[in-house]
């Protein structure tokens, strides 16, 4: 494209120049002819006045030396030829058109020739005419020569331009493009091992490439460093977690022993010797048993939580609706007097660990059951909200709800938003739910308001990283 534009520009310039040259050359030619005519004319006055053809002829003879004069002649005032010559023997009389009265000189262009006629004056009177006929061959030759030169120059300059441009491309444009492509590749593939090859010459581009490579090296180093650090931190975290989990498991497990003892012995006490105990003593033992029961529950929950955290996951198809129904049945059996309406879809299939999912649903439904216990009738719902790229599951109740401002504390362990007197519980349930949901690669969140119930949403993204 550029080449075409340059070529056109060059050609236009040449055309302009040549046209100008042609015009000026022709004008020059006419001027020369005019001068020659003047000289010949003034030198022929006497020949004309004294009717001397030989003198006229000898004056004309001087013109025969001039290259491009084809023919010339001296005419008397009545257009009769006094003397003439013609380079071309074949040419007969040249047809000289008459000169207008006011004009001293005129010229006509005819068939590749120019004919110039001039009056010969003596004492202000026309005594005769001189005519010169010159060939414009020279003009044509000139033009052809110029055309050849123009074409030659054009070709050479285009070739030179091509050479320069390709050398430029090689030494500048190509390395830059390579640089850009490499940068793109690195961003795309995140492969920091790639380096750009340095150009042959040691010029500014080599400096640029060098700096670029240096930068890449630094990038790679910091990337590796970061990876290392992340790996380390992860290792630390994992091990910390593991430790914690192991600790909580062993603690819980170890705590059970004494607890079982407390439970057992207090039972025996009550059973065997209950009759001998009076009301007050009996109450004391009941209190011991109650606290022991609570503690057992807490340890169970903690054990659950740690199991949830540590055990390996098995992925299977699980019907959450079925799980929910079975849990509700259990709850109904434990409190048959309660009027609780339960709504769930026919089938809700997900992929996940069946045990963990059961624990999840158990916790959520039990909460819903629990926090509607103060109302005469309750409604608990399990369902799905299809969203753009994921399915959101929810468990809703119309119970006491919670203060939404404290929502961020909901899922932290041991954070209870209600007192134990209001609603029993130890604050581990939702933490467990969160952990299970996390292990399934999902999220959990809650909406609620005081006395307006609560809705717990969660997602299970089994296709993403699990564990």
């Amino acid at each position, binding site marked *: 494209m550029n080449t075409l534009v340059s070529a056109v520009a060059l050609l236009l310039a040449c055309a302009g120049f040549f046209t100008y040259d042609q015009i000026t050359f022709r004008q020059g030619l006419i001027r020369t002819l005019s001068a020659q005519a003047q000289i010949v004319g003034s030198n022929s006055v*006497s020949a004309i*006045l004294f009717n001397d053809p030989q003198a006229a002829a000898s004056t004309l003879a001087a013109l025969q030396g001039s290259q491009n004069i084809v023919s010339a002649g001296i005419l008397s005032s009545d257009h009769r030829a006094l003397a003439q010559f013609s380079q071309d023997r074949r040419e007969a009389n040249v047809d000289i058109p008459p000169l207008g009265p006011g004009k001293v000189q005129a010229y006509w262009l005819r068939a590749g020739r120019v004919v110039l006629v001039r009056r010969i004056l003596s004492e202000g009177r026309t005594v005769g005419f001189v005519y010169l006929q010159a060939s414009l061959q020279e003009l044509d030759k000139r033009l052809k020569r110029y055309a050849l030169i123009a074409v030659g120059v054009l070709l050479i300059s285009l070739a030179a331009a091509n050479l320069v441009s390709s050398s430029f491309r090689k030494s500048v444009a190509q390395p830059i493009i390579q640089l850009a492509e490499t940068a793109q590749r690195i961003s795309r593939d995140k492969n920091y091992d790639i380096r750009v090859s340095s150009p042959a010459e040691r010029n500014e581009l080599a400096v640029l490439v060098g700096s670029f490579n240096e930068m890449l090296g630094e990038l790679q180093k910091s990337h590796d460093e970061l990876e290392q650090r992340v790996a380390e931190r992860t290792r630390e975290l994992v091990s910390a977690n593991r430790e914690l989990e192991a600790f909580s498991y062993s603690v819980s497990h170890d705590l059970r022993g004494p607890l079982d003892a407390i439970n057992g012995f207090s039972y025996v006490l009550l059973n065997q010797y209950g009759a001998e105990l009076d009301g007050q003593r009996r109450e004391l033992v009941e209190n011991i048993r109650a606290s022991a029961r609570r503690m057992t529950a807490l340890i169970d929950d903690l054990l659950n939580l740690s199991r949830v955290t540590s055990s390996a996951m098995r992925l299977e198809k699980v019907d959450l609706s079925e799980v929910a129904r079975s849990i509700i049945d259990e709850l109904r059996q434990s409190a048959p007097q309660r009027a609780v309406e339960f709504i769930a879809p026919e089938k809700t299939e997900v992929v996940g660990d069946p045990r963990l999912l059961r624990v999840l649903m158990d916790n959520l439904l039990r909460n819903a059951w629990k926090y509607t216990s103060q109302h005469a009738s309750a409604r608990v719902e399990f369902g799905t909200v299809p969203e753009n790229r994921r399915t959101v599951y929810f468990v809703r109740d119309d119970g006491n709800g919670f203060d939404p401002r404290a929502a961020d504390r909901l899922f932290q362990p041991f954070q209870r938003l209600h007192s134990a007197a209001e609603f029993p519980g130890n604050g581990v349930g939702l933490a467990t739910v969160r952990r299970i949901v996390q292990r399934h690669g999902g999220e959990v969140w809650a909406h609620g308001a005081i006395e307006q119930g609560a809705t717990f949403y969660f997602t299970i993204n089994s296709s993403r990283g699990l564990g």
Partner: protein
Amino acid sequence: MAAVNSAVNSAFGRRVGSRPKIAARLAIASSLIVLFATFAVGQNARSTESQVKAAYLYNFGKFVTWTDRAGNSDTFQICVLGKDPFGRVLDSTVKGESIDQKTVRVARISRVQEAAPCNILFISASEQGHLSAILADAQRMEVLTVSDMPHFAERGGTIGLVNHQDRIRFEVNRNMAEKSHLVLSSELLKVAVRVIQGKPGR
């Protein structure tokens, strides 16, 4: 016509019959007409020759420089000495013409002494007899002497008109021109049929 008839009668030596008479008369008449025509043409030819000579006389003025009397007067005088062969022709030729912005006038003189104001002096053939005297006087006057008498240039005239190959040409005597303080243009010399350099006579 009557004289002709009688001449013809006597030439034939007998009285001519009526029909042959008419034919003969016709023949004679036509030949006479031809003769007259030729004579008339000859007259014209002769007028053309005068015209040419008159034109030459005027044109000489363009190629000669009068060194001593340049700018002296505002007229250019052509004088005819002796029997005028031009008649009206010379006057009509130079009418309204000028040489070097000087109006051209024609004058006829009878004596060479009157030639002082003349630029060109045409010496008629009638003056052949006392040519040397005329030339001797003319020489002192810076005047261009022209004539059509034979050998004029050889005999001391400056420009002599001659008949050369059926054309009016002229011979030039450079010496005389020099003596008369006249400068003849090379243009003139170019077309002269003969240029005489060196002393005449010897």
